[in-house]
């Protein structure tokens, strides 16, 4: 009815007026905020003096600079730190990013250039403190410097706190085409920092960071579980290789769960779990119980390089032989499996393998591989792979007489290769 329409229109007008009033209030609030900002900082964000060249991608900045004559290029480097950094970043092709935990909430960073052996470490404490080193000698280092691969500074000049990790990593990741390897030294696996890291790796704006195929986690620690490891696996779709180096101290060590191991071997080509303390005097058995049956489950078809060297698995000689047979049957040229077993099983394993322990030097043969090395304290390690390497340490190994039914056995002494049949 016409009357109803009028009421409806009137109602709509009132609502619009209310909305406009709210918008005006918001606008006035914003203006007030801006004027406060001007008072505090002396400048308005939107009218802040812009430096257009610095808004260009580093690659374009580099493209412009390389068209300048040489003296101009040198002079330009002295004009502005950010420009200097942008050029340096553009010239770097970042391959590896490493984060070192230096304190409870601090990290240092290290990056490696793909096309050179240049490594740049950023010690981001007490102001800018950049240290560089080369894997090669000083002459190469000097030459590299002349080729303009230069210091990289962070804009943040305070110690890198966890809160800044996101920004700092984002800056790196967005300025580089791709990162193949990510190394994190000392990181909580199940606290918020791990979640933060995973968010960064998954972030839409840095899709290319998902190029990470190798993840090295050194000394991760967690008070609860390895939930963070699951997160990382899911965050890096191209991940193929994970190295987990576990610290035995402090006591709040990471617990590697069986389910994580099973998931990892189903997703990865290479999984290495090591313990830094295992070759020392302490032989702590991890909470993860790895027995014969579990080892066989771990020898999946996907993962062809598996090293479980962080605990003393509860393997029997039969289990070891079964694992060896499983690996040989898979017939993968790159297959490697490493685990520890108790030294009292050594003779049994030898006999089951048809080996008589003999020589006192390193013995290497090819196809397939068995690596056996005693670690002291009554324990040995066995590693099985394609290059049939039987390694017996000099001080323990008795005489060895090879009688394996494998093709092509090469015996190498510490002096020279002596036979090949």
């Amino acid at each position, binding site marked *: 009815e016409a009357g109803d329409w009028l009421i409806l229109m009137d109602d709509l007008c009132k609502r619009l007026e209310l909305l406009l009033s709210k918008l005006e209030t918001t606008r006035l609030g914003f203006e007030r905020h801006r004027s406060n900002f001007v008072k505090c900082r002396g400048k308005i964000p939107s009218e802040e003096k812009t*430096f*257009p060249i610095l808004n260009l991608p580093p690659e374009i900045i580099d*493209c*412009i600079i390389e*068209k*300048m004559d040489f003296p101009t290029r040198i002079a330009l480097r002295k*004009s502005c730190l*950010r420009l200097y950094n942008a050029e340096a970043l553009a010239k770097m092709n970042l391959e590896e990013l490493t984060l070192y935990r230096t304190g409870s909430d601090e990290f240092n960073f290290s990056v490696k250039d793909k096309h050179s052996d240049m490594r740049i470490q950023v010690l981001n404490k007490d*102001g*800018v403190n950049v240290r560089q080193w080369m894997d090669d000698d000083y002459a190469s280092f000097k030459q590299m410097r002349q080729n303009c691969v230069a210091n990289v500074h962070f804009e943040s000049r305070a110690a890198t706190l966890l809160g800044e990790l996101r920004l700092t990593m984002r800056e790196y990741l967005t300025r580089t085409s791709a990162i193949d390897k990510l190394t994190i030294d000392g990181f909580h696996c199940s606290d918020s920092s791990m979640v933060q890291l995973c968010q960064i790796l998954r972030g839409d704006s840095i899709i290319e960071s998902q190029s990470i195929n190798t993840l090295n986690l050194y000394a991760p620690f967690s008070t609860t579980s390895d939930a963070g490891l699951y997160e990382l696996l899911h965050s890096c779709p191209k991940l193929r290789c994970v190295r987990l180096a576990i610290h035995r101290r402090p006591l709040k060590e990471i617990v590697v769960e069986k389910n994580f191991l099973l998931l990892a071997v189903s997703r990865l080509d290479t999984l290495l779990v090591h313990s830094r303390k295992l070759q020392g005097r302490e032989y702590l058995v991890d909470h993860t119980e790895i027995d014969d049956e579990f080892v066989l489950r771990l020898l999946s078809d996907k993962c062809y390089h598996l090293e479980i060297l962080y605990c003393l698995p509860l393997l029997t000689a039969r289990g070891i032989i079964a694992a060896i047979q499983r690996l040989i049957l898979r017939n993968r040229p790159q297959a490697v499996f490493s685990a520890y077993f108790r030294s009292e099983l050594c003779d049994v394993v030898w006999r089951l393998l048809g080996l008589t322990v003999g020589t006192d030097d390193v013995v290497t043969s090819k196809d397939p591989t068995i690596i056996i090395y005693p670690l002291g304290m009554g324990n040995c390690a066995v590693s099985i792979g394609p290059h049939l390497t039987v390694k017996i340490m000099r001080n323990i190994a008795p005489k060895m007489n090879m009688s394996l039914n494998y093709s092509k056995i090469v015996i190498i002494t510490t002096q020279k290769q002596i036979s090949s049949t």
Partner: protein
Amino acid sequence: RIYPLMRVTLTTSDGASVTVSRQLTKHSGFIEKAITDMAVDDNAVPLSAVAVDVDDATLKLVIEWLTEHRDDALPYPEKTDEERRADDIPAWDQAFVQKWDTKEDQQQTLYAVITAADKLDIKGLLDMTCKTLANKINGKTVEEMREILQLECDFTEEELAEIRKENAWCEN
């Protein structure tokens, strides 16, 4: 094969639409890839719209340059280190830049075209505009560079000393 009569509609970041010949867009790696990804019939006239992250005013400049360079050989030749010189800009390109380089916001336009050439992957235009900017800087003092590029000196004294030390081998 690119047919001169084929046309493609470009939609700009500020909502405008421009229809241009495929003969022009073939110089843009971005647009060519977008067309390929759409897997449309090459005979479709016009082709489906391709969204470009460039504003209308800048795109018009880009199209003007592309029109002049429509017959340039592709792919754009890679330059060796020796060939990376900034004093070989063709006369038409110099006049083209000069035309809008005299505006009040001259550098903003130049940066906009550089960014557009980068986004649209037009190597020839990117090369030419980078040379233009490089020419503005060549031979200038550090202070003059800062003024032209609107840079501020954000080095600390220690950092400046370090830079001087690094460059000592090639100075004087």
